[in-house]
């Protein structure tokens, strides 16, 4: 599919710039240019398409769909629709209240809250571009499973008493908005959204791919296997812990991680790291603190964190 891009890149790097085809610098520059063009094409096309799709599914409509489902299938729907819904830290509270105050159970709400930031189109595009379709699928499937199970666990613990900061007896009923948008507006929304996201992440993407290109060319194979190979159990929790403060930098982190995986970091460790980057974030927790007691937040953090670490172990075990 990206054959023309590769031909163009080769022409640019080896022909026009005159770098040697078999030199380290030549292949590093070629890698950088090719991957960057490929990733930006993928980002533009996929974010635009998902945004158009999204105009048909505003959060209020998502909520109404979930409300109609029975207990277990509600978790599946919440996690699934969470993938499609963008998650913005500043919208977390209205979203949360909109779910809980219309009668969606707390556990189901958590399934949504876990899936929404963890499985997003930027992370998926980066995984697709820098790893493979298979890895992107494994990532999405494990994220989905973690979201469903975390929600089920939190639901079973009956933690409604740990909510605070709003009137819980209040029930909201409200009409669905934005379902009848004209096409011109859908396209305008998708264009704005795509430009907004790409405008925000492009420096990280370039830095990530650049660092990846450097590692790709200059770091010896298997250098990292000694510390982060599949037989090193502690690599998974360490990777997850390191990933937590890197929130919102999935775009820059994934190309880097892709290069590290080539140098011997095990796949499960890589997965755990990326999930911690996208799924566990301090800014989101700080915001959610306004509607939850600290204990509930810690349980949330613990359950999702345990799910991430377990996934890491599982894939290291299967793929070794």
């Amino acid at each position, binding site marked *: 599919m990206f054959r023309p891009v590769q031909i163009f890149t080769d022409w640019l790097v080896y022909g026009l710039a005159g770098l040697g085809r078999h030199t380290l610098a030549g292949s590093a520059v070629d890698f950088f240019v090719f991957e960057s063009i490929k990733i930006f094409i993928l980002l533009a096309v996929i974010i635009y398409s998902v945004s158009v799709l999204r105009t048909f599914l505003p*959060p209020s409509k998502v909520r109404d769909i979930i409300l109609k489902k029975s207990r277990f299938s509600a978790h599946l729907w919440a996690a699934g629709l969470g993938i499609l819904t963008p998650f913005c830290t500043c919208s977390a509270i209205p979203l949360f209240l909109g779910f809980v105050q219309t009668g969606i159970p707390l556990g189901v709400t958590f399934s949504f809250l876990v899936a929404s930031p963890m499985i997003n189109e930027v992370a998926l595009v980066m995984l697709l571009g820098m790893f493979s379709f298979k890895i992107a699928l494994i990532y999405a499937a494990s994220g989905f499973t973690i979201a469903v199970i975390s929600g089920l666990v939190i639901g079973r613990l009956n933690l409604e008493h740990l909510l605070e900061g709003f009137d819980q007896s209040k029930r909201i009923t409200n009409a669905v908005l934005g379902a009848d948008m004209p096409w011109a507006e859908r396209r305008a929304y998708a264009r704005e959204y795509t430009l907004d996201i790409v405008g925000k992440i492009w420096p990280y993407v370039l830095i990530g791919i650049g660092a990846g290109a450097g590692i790709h060319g200059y770091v010896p194979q298997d250098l990292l296997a000694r510390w982060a190979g599949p037989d090193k159990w502690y690599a998974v929790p360490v990777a997850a812990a390191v990933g937590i403060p890197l929130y919102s930098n999935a775009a820059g982190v994934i190309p880097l991680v892709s290069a590290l995986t080539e140098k011997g970091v095990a796949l499960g460790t890589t997965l755990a790291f990326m999930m911690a980057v996208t799924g566990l974030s301090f800014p989101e927790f700080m915001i959610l603190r306004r509607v939850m007691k600290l204990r509930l937040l810690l349980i949330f953090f613990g359950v999702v964190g345990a799910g991430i670490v377990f996934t890491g172990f599982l894939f290291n075990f299967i793929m070794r």
Partner: protein
Amino acid sequence: MKKIQVLGGGCPKCGKLYEHAEAAAKELGLEYEMEKISDFDRIAEMGVMSTPALAVDGKVRFEGRVPTVESLKEELSK
């Protein structure tokens, strides 16, 4: 008198929507009053789940985006 309400908890996008809405109202020559609603309870009560959102005279028009001044002019003349 139109009451233009911008709903949002103070993220950068909410400020942008506020500016755009005010610019649109001015360009239309409307008689208007701006209001910023950042109290989450009130936002939730108005049925908004994605910020920033715009309401006119208490009725929510859209949520979760920042349209251009041009399309806001159209929205406000409805």
